[in-house]
């Protein structure tokens, strides 16, 4: 289906909208949806980080994003931030400055979360859900350390 606005691009989704006092379901391409202010523009902060001609590419083991894809679409999952750390760091400095995450003591609330997790661990053990129990146990250890 073609975009209702430009009539040229393929519509990527249908947006229910109030258009000229009419309630319609507008088939829209990404470009027109952004131009009309219906959706946010997809800003990729990592465009151009991939250097062509490299014989090897890193690949995120979690979401299988390659370095080339990362350059085109950004991080595919939380693990990408570890895999492509060296590429991401200068971009983050550009956006936020050379700063690290800060959080207040109150927000750490480590004790509350750990207590809650310990309860969940007992519940998982009681119903013999050992894989879930293992996950919760690992999380408790991570927070305690």
């Amino acid at each position, binding site marked *: 289906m073609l975009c209702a606005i430009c009539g040229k691009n393929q519509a990527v989704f249908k947006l229910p909208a109030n258009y000229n006092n009419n309630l319609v379901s507008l088939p829209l391409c990404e470009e027109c949806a952004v131009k009309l202010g219906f959706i946010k523009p997809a800003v990729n902060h990592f465009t151009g980080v991939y250097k062509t001609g490299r014989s090897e590419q890193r690949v995120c083991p979690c979401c299988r994003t390659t370095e080339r894809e990362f350059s085109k679409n950004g991080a595919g999952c*939380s693990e990408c931030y570890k895999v492509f750390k060296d590429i991401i760091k200068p971009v983050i400095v550009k956006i936020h400055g050379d700063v690290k995450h800060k959080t207040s003591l*109150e927000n750490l609330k480590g004790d509350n979360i750990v207590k809650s997790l310990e309860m969940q661990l007992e519940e998982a053990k009681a119903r013999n859900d050992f894989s879930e129990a293992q996950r919760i146990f690992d*999380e408790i250890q991570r927070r305690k350390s």
Partner: protein
Amino acid sequence: MTDLKKHMIVSSRVRLARNIAKIPFPFKMSPFEAASVIDKVFNALKSTGEYNLYKLNELSDIECLSLKERYLISNDLIKNRNIGAVILNSNETISVMVNEEDHIRAQCVLPGLDINTAYEEIKKVDLALNSALNIAYDDELGYITSCPTNLGTGLRASALCFLPGLSTLNDIGKIVKSFSHINAEVRGVYGEGTKATGYLYQVSNKTTLGITEEELVEDVKAMVLELAEKEVKARERILNMCDPDIIDNIMRSYGILTNAYKLTTDEFMSLSADARMGACLGYTPDIDEQKLNTLLLDVQPATLIVKGGKNYTAEERDIARAALVKRMLNNN
């Protein structure tokens, strides 16, 4: 009685962005992964309070549009309709979008200037999520988000402000420039650039990394209070000007708003803004702030259909809107 401080802050909002570790972000996830995230998030929340889950692919276009009109979901979630969902508490002050730009976008919206309470409420949601799920987090980068602009606290605090004084005197642009060095930004809500229809502006923090949540909330609150002070002075100037054109426009707007047989959404936005301005300058009868803020949402076209339970035509909607406005404002 003139009270220049009235009708200033329409609502406060605090929203946070979270993702479950080791699951692809929404733009890359499979339908199976998407469904799994929805289940995990809903299970994490429903054990802490009364929440309802709405999967967007099970809702009609009108229902989706009404949720958007009430600021409970975004168009970006509608774009991800096949994998998106929203979880609402019973009074719709808390809305948790699932599989929008991030796995979780949770917000609390409260009337007036109440950013601190909104933040306390959203902290409870955050605790529920962190207790039940493996939320992606890094000691240096903070909460991991799909877009790096939201890293760190993943928190955006904002207030929706009614600024007819600064707007009429064309001072908004100057104010925006004076705030450029602070961690805050001002933008018009219903219009282009700095001149907004309805004189509504959103004030929110810019950066999310390298600052604690509490500092962020206090920064936004400080800017809102400073803006409010400047707005009061602007309203005083307008009152002292006694400009017949401004007064006439306000009174005509009030007259049409409270007597018209039909009103389009755009007409309502423009007329109600002038009537609200008239209320705080004392030119027209006072209007209850909460009633007007509720009307702002209830007159939207899809919400009229959903709440009215009737599939109105455009003209029937305009008639129903005018009737609703008359009923709410004449019972003032």
